[in-house]
């Protein structure tokens, strides 16, 4: 789960990382009240799960209450790289003496964690990496050993943190690492980590991604922060039904079992000249109900002009899939044509059920490639 800036900051503050005073706001009026409580100048910051909001005009400083309200009104509703701003973070404007970068993340290649620090903060770290890779310290952390003092020091020294800030930066790094581990985070990134004019080190931004697999260990945190961020109503619906669904830009709706097979299905649809409208993996051993729910989600997307159901039975059984399709067609009006490819466990039984329940627009195809071609053809015809 990608947290919003203010959510990440709340977590960091709870482990002792200094962050500026701030309050969340959802309306210009709330922003005004928050700003008055905090005192001026304040920064009004768009809360979106995407970088680059500063350049997009999503951060503005207000010198008084009227300005705060006006900025809030301007930022709320703004579209930043496809993310609509629905929430603001109002915080005391920072007094920046120096801007650094610090993060901990998972290093898949090295099979451990990775700490990164740079004295060049406040800009995208990829830019720094491109311009001067030596300006970024990278230190691997063995998960069994943790962030030893020497590793925290190495990050500060090699990241060229100035001597006068080094000690406090090292202390903050240790807290960030502790938060990274204790929260089961996949990413904890602070950019910029600033030194203010009093020499204090403060996290001025925070990007925290939590590991969804670890939700059971952090029920409260997930509950507190779980808002349906999805812009897309289909993604929202899928989330409610616990489906593994991702909205894409094409017109062929996809439903399959197994992440690899579904990815492969998107690819063969593209090879057949179409574009997938979504990724939807029903997982292993899907029931008829789950199949019906899934079909409803896919069909509800107005962009979808045909639907390709691609199932290779293993734990998932063909007759359950077929029953789910029939049940969904009974339950809701599905206007798009459907192509079904069933193989593997009990595929024969499944095909028989479908053959026994003929519907207009419900097609069967014996192979994945033929099914893809058919689905694309039907989508084109409906276009």
């Amino acid at each position: 789960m990608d947290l919003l800036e203010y959510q990440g900051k709340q977590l960091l503050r709870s482990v002792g990382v200094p962050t500026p005073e701030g309050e969340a706001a959802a309306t210009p009026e709330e922003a005004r009240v928050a700003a008055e409580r905090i005192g001026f100048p304040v920064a009004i910051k768009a809360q979106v799960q995407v970088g680059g909001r500063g350049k997009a005009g999503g951060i503005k400083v207000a010198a008084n209450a009227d300005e705060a309200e006006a900025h809030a009104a301007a930022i709320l509703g703004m579209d930043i790289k496809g993310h609509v701003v629905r929430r603001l973070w109002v915080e005391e404007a920072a007094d920046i003496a120096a801007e650094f970068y610090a993060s901990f993340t998972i290093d898949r290649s090295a099979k451990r964690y990775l700490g990164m620090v740079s004295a060049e903060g406040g800009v995208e770290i990829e830019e720094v990496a491109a311009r001067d890779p030596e300006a970024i310290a990278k230190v691997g952390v063995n998960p069994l050993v943790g962030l030893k003092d020497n590793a925290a020091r190495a990050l500060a020294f090699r990241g060229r943190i100035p001597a006068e800030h080094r000690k406090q930066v090292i202390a903050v790094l240790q807290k960030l690492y502790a938060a990274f581990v204790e929260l089961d985070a996949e990413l904890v990134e602070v950019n910029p980590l600033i030194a203010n004019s009093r020499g204090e080190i403060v996290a001025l931004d925070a990007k925290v991604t939590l590991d969804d697999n670890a939700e059971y260990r952090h029920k409260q945190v997930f509950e507190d922060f779980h808002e349906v961020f999805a812009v897309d109503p289909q993604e929202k619906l899928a989330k409610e039904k616990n489906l593994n669904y991702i909205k894409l830009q094409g017109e062929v709706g996809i439903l399959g079992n197994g992440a690899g097979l579904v990815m492969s299905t998107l690819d063969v649809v593209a090879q057949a000249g179409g574009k997938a409208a979504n990724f939807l993996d029903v997982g292993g051993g899907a029931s008829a109900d789950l199949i019906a729910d899934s079909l409803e989600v896919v069909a509800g997307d107005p962009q979808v002009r045909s639907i390709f159901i691609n199932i290779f039975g293993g734990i998932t059984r063909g007759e359950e899939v077929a029953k789910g399709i029939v049940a969904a067609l009974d339950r809701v009006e599905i206007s798009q044509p459907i192509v079904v490819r069933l193989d593997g466990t009990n595929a024969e039984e499944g095909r028989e059920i479908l053959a026994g329940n003929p519907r207009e627009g419900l097609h069967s195809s014996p192979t994945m490639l033929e099914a893809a071609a058919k689905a694309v053809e039907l989508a084109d015809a409906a276009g």
Partner: protein
Amino acid sequence: MAIYVDETTKVVVSGLTGREGQFHALRNRAYGTQVVAGVTPGKGGQDVEGIPVFDTIAEAVEVTGANTSMVFVPAPFAADACFEAADSGVELIVCITEGIPARDEAELYQYLRLRDIAMIGPNCPGVLSPGKANVGIMPTEIAAPGRVGLVSRSGTLTYQIVHELTQRGIGQSTCVGIGGDPFIGQFHIDVLRRFEADPETDMVVMVGEIGGDEEERAAEFIRDSMTKAVVGYVAGFEAPPGKKMGHAGAIISGSKGTAQAKAEALEAAGAKVGRNPTEVAEIVAGM
């Protein structure tokens, strides 16, 4: 003799008394696999259709001579079961469980290095050496004994390719589903190394997907150290960056981990790469 599992494999199943564990363990046994023990703390002394249940893996190993652990317990307890297996004396762990937190897997990965024990998974369909043993959840009907090895991150995608191979009369030496998580015990490269050394394997099909750089590393290994032909396939050309495509590990980060880059790396290493499962089977059939 096959890689990872064969006629000499003796499986102890953590979570045998659970619904999933029981279903698949019995299927594995029905296929001819020696499923010699189950483990459920507190249920020691019971049995599941004749398979004795123990309180700890170590006890099961001691009594039954099990050499392979298969883990079916729910995610919150699965990493612990793998740690337990690592200390129990087995040589191989096959962890089917999906949804284990990355932190647990990261620690487990490093611990297994310390113990020098191989683990397949987590979040994988297991290993099937057709005609010899099946440890996991792969459907066996679609496979046939033969001399093509297969390694893949994905479950059903693997079945699709195995199915297409078998339909064309091409049997498999061993099919290995290594799992879709960022931290898994055996990566493509580890499996390729075993296939290269396996006298019963002539050719290898390697199935990758977006995320990480393991396919690129495997490509290097293919170029530098493999004498056997490799046919590659990579899923996820259409996957958008920054989205997890079902598997925790299947995510393009920035411009890293794309299917395009992986397919190109494999081709540059001398592997033929199919554009879809059918083409993969056709390439193998033509070789």
